[in-house]
């Protein structure tokens, strides 16, 4: 029994790290542009499909495929920001609707081009590691490490560089940041594009673990928003932790409780957090 629990915790942590990378994008975009970008789900789908296409159809090795996919999606993210989201800054409802429109367009286009049949990447890194009767596939470990590294790098980038600090300053007080010489328009665009590339990276890594289908974006963006709120909006490292907590609670919860309701556990958790500690698990004063 203990092995089942530990295995489920590990699985939960890996899925949770994927939630976390989307949550990081949600948190960053929300703090800087004031919009909850549901379209990150769409960018994640594109990242997954581009990776799949580069690897399986064009025959490029896996790691360069992921990089190419992230690059391509970043360009799309830039275009989406310049053409659409630039006009919805700090307008929650309009931003929400534009991102919903974008999800519809992307999801339907993916369906048109690649059909609804789930796509599988051939094994990138086969093999499992066994420790004390618990087996984990190597690829899952590598990917979790990569996700943790990206979140940590983002944290370092935000706290140690001038640009990162200007982002924090902007989130606290836009006018004051502007007066201190922060190019706010460029900052907003860069954060937006960075968030889309994070989502694309999540999608590209996801493609090596599970089969991909167009509807995965809608699922992951909801989990990402949940994880971001759970952790507290604006928490960089917290968003990863929030994702992992969500993933583990879903997987461990489904051992003891009906697994059909697994999506509901995170939601109950989310409601309790919002009612009792609206700043989130890791958030300080609001």
């Amino acid at each position, binding site marked *: 029994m203990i092995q089942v629990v530990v295995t489920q915790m590990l699985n939960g942590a890996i899925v949770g790290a994927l939630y976390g990378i989307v949550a990081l994008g949600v948190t960053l975009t929300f703090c800087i542009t004031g919009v909850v970008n549901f379209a990150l789900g769409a960018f994640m789908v594109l990242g997954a499909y581009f990776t799949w296409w580069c690897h399986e159809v064009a025959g490029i090795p896996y790691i360069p495929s992921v990089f190419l996919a992230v690059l391509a999606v970043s360009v799309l993210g830039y275009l989406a920001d310049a053409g659409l989201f630039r006009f919805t800054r700090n307008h929650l409802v*309009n931003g929400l609707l534009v991102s*919903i429109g974008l999800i519809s*367009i992307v999801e339907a286009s993916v369906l048109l081009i690649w059909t609804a049949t789930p796509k599988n990447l051939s094994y990138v890194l086969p093999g499992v590691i066994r420790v004390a009767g618990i087996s984990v596939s190597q690829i899952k470990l590598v990917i979790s490490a990569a996700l943790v590294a990206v979140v940590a790098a983002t944290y370092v980038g935000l706290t140690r560089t001038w640009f990162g600090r200007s982002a924090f300053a902007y989130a606290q007080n836009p006018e004051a940041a502007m007066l201190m010489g922060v190019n706010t328009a460029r900052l907003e665009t860069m954060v937006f594009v960075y968030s889309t590339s994070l989502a694309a990276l999540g999608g590209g890594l996801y493609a090596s673990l599970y089969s991909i289908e167009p509807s995965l974006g809608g699922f992951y963006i909801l989990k990402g928003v949940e994880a971001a*709120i759970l952790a507290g909006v604006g928490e960089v490292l917290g968003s990863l932790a929030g994702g992992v907590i969500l993933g583990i609670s879903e997987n461990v919860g489904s051992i003891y409780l*009906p697994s059909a309701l697994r999506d509901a556990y995170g939601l109950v958790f989310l409601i309790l957090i919002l009612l009792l500690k609206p700043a989130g698990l890791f958030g300080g004063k609001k």
Partner: protein
Amino acid sequence: MKTAIFAVALAAAAPAVTHSDSILTICIYAFLMGALAVSFNFIFGLTGQLSLFHAAAFGLSAYVSVLLVTRLHWGFWISLILAVLAAVIVAAAVATLCFRFKLREFYFAIVTMALSEILRLWIQNWYELTNGTLGISFVQKPEIWTPYGYITVSSSTSWYFVSLTILVAVSALCWRLQQSWVGRAFSAIRLNEQLAETMGIDVFAYKFLNFVLGSALAGLVGVFYAFYTGFVEPDYLSVTQSLDIVAMVLLGGVNSVAGPILGAFILTALPHVIDMGAEVRVILYGVVLIVVILALPKGLRSLVGRERHAT
């Protein structure tokens, strides 16, 4: 007012002109969706609460009425009343939770979304009762009294008049309330909650009333929608459905009664009028949504006529 009466008269005369079943079908869907959009705008447009619980109220009532009619073989009208009552009770619980804890804006939207997802998952997984994701198909239709005796509402023409009646009734109620002192209290809350409280408006009571009434109207529409299509499925309660309603309202224009109806007509009729593949329709839907939001932030309503209501 004159325009509204004229529009209703025109709509009532339409079946005399056209006998095309497909046109009537589009109109029935548009009327029902229009009533749903008006009831959503009653919450969002007046008190400014972005409720993502609207589809849940719609779907919950649909399920309750369908289960009562198909499983217990109760009559349509008693089921309708109980179904709306169910929506009232659940909405009252949601409103108490959200407004007692003073959830605002984004947090209110997220909590209502989470609650509606929990409700959907619960219905979806109560397989013995609800048949899960497959939904329930049924043949029962409501019976109504007319001067010519009781008739079963089953033909397109009869559904056309029933749905038109619902749209007019819901719109008239919402319009009347919007014009009254209750409506002004709602608007005051939207514009400045603290100030409204200072002026002696019981913010909790008005928000509660507004949310419960709007959700009850959504439930009413849900029952008729389910009996028109003869089918219910858990997707009636999905977040996507709620967001579709938001899209209709914003497309048409918030804060008027005509706006949401206009938006509902466009988004409902658009996929039917243009004959093409399902994916292309969805793409077009997304494009229309984005263009309208960015180009006409006040909705299509702002193109036609001036706004009478100052708020």
